[in-house]
């Protein structure tokens, strides 16, 4: 299992800082009513960015939940662009180009976990070398789909990295009310697969375990469950008020372990990072973001998009509905004889 090089760690930090910076911008835009409800990334950056850097964007897949996009720069600039399009409520926001091995965000919790098993299994059937990493939260880990998927992957020896982002909360439900398990990694033994628990605020540690899991998967060793322990530093979503339930002292303690501070300190000590670096990265992140957001807001929408891609071809009824829809978009669209 390989440790990340200093260059890699710096690249990971760059992505983390950019993500945190852009998340702040996005939050403000939401408050201005320019984007819809969204889930902040704050506190999760190290796990996401380090995982992305431990994978090969040309061969490996990432199936996200919904908190990950801003720190997936390694998989291509389109991830940010489409994420912003998604946030302005445009259907095309869920479309990524063929070259980008990232699935659309998943809102129906844990349903992406069996998808990961099928995708990984399918790739082995096609003799493709890739590994599938699927993100899901501590709350999502209680869903039956996670169980069915991990068990199936164990039997099929599917090349999957089950990445459980344990941020201690499912909206207002704390981990101890989510499960009595000492560690979510303890689920692995019940499926006959390896389970690793890692400090998700330590980018280097995350890189190592994901690299180890990926190596095992690629060599036919099957799936691994990785629990990344982090703390949700922000609200669940822009619609949530965490002050109703998050103990301030816990939040304070967590802030002291802010993954970005940790990695900055480490790289500063090595002389690889400083205030200017941060400033530059933040500035570039915002320029990138603002350009992409402008394009996202300007992206045209057609009422017909409502029916596009539902089927490869409209059914008789859909064709009529589409005609009515376009004829009277927004004003009247009921079925006409």
């Amino acid at each position: 299992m390989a440790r990340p090089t200093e260059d890699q760690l710096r690249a990971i930090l760059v992505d983390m800082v950019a993500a945190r910076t852009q998340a702040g911008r996005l939050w403000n835009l939401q408050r201005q009513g320019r984007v819809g409800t969204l889930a902040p990334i704050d506190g999760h950056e190290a796990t996401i960015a380090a995982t992305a850097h431990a994978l090969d964007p040309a061969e490996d897949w990432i199936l996200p939940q919904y908190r990950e996009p801003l720190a997936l720069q390694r998989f291509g600039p389109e991830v940010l662009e489409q994420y912003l399009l998604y946030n302005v409520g445009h259907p095309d926001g869920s479309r990524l180009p063929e070259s980008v091995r990232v699935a659309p965000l998943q809102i129906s919790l844990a349903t992406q976990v069996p998808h990961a098993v099928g995708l990984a299994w399918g790739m082995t059937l096609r003799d493709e070398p890739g590994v599938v990493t699927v993100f899901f939260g501590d709350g999502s880990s209680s869903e039956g789909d996670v169980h069915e998927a991990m068990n199936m992957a164990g039997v099929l020896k599917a090349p999957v990295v089950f990445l459980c982002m344990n941020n201690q909360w499912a909206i207002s439900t704390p981990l101890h009310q989510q499960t009595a398990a000492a560690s979510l990694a303890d689920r692995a033994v019940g499926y006959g697969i390896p389970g690793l628990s890692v400090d998700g605020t330590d980018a280097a540690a995350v890189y190592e375990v994901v690299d180890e899991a990926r190596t095992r998967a690629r060599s036919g060793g099957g799936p691994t469950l990785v629990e990344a322990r982090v703390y949700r530093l922000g609200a669940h979503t822009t619609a949530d008020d965490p002050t109703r339930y998050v103990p301030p002292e816990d939040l304070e303690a967590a802030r002291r372990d802010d993954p970005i501070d940790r990695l900055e300190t480490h790289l500063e000590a090595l002389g690889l990072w400083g205030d200017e670096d941060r400033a530059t990265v933040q500035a570039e992140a915002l320029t990138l973001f603002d350009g992409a957001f402008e394009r996202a807001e300007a992206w045209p929408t057609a009422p017909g998009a409502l029916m596009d891609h539902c089927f490869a071809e409209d059914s008789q009824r859909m064709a009529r509905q589409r005609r009515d829809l376009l004829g009277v978009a927004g004003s009247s669209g009921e079925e006409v004889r």
Partner: protein
Amino acid sequence: MTSASELTMLQAVNEALHGEMARDERVVVLGEDVARNGGVFRATEGLFEKFGEQRVVDTPLAEAGIIGSTVGLAMAGLVPVAEVQFLGFSYQAMHQIAGQVARLRYRSRGRFEPAITIRAPFGGGVRTPELHSDSLEGQLANIAGLKLVAPATAADAKGLLATSVRDPDPVIFLEPLRGYRGIRGEVPDGEHLVPLGEAREARTGDEVVIIAWSHQVELACRASDALAAEGLSVAVLDLRSLVPLDLAGIAAAVDRCGRAVVVEEAVQTGGFAGEVVATIVEECFWSLEAPIVRVSGYDAPYPVGQLEDTYVPDEARIAAAVRRVLEVA
């Protein structure tokens, strides 16, 4: 005479829950984020503080576990009121809802009483993410053993919810997201019960009847009022409950008007509006002076924010449908 207060639908739901928990200690409330957080919309606000952690429980994130456990709670003689955070996620528990909750009494031949209520917000118009707005009435109505209640006013939200909690059969109680804060009105204080299976004439009229439920009733009423300005007499029938369905109430309205429009937000094919049309054909075919028109969503998934207003029926589409059924000589 009873006093009343001006409440939103959300406050009315909350008041009904407080009332039922105070009245019957067998009532327990369970679901995701319903306790300390008072629900993501605050529908269960104050219950945890008032009735305690034994009776108001934040469960793990597991819909089948939540709904499945209500079956066992009912077997133990309790009266569970479960919240599914959004109706679209009832799919995760559909095997428990359709195969278990709906059949507990039937399978046990009356031994166990499934006094289970499942509350769930649904419906569009508030820019939620995917699967938060889907309307599944048509699918749920086809499951024998379930009652399906969908209030359109604040008063009914309180009165129908209280009745649902007391009902000996399983009730799926649908709360319109847009109505939570968007619909407000006079709600009787204290105990207020509205029977299931009795439609409500939200607007009187004798030329066309618009049949609707939940938030669409609001839109239908607006359409009716707008058309009244043009001198048209358009009735609005609020079904209130889809199961049991008020066959007599529907027949009376259609017999009187001879023309009908059925409104729903769901995907058109297989939606409950089709059941209403079939019922009208069975109940009062000979009174029909024009084909019944359905105003509904499209045969596509409920869309993302930018397309929502195109998808969801609005006042204009409803009014246009009314004009169409009137054009027919």
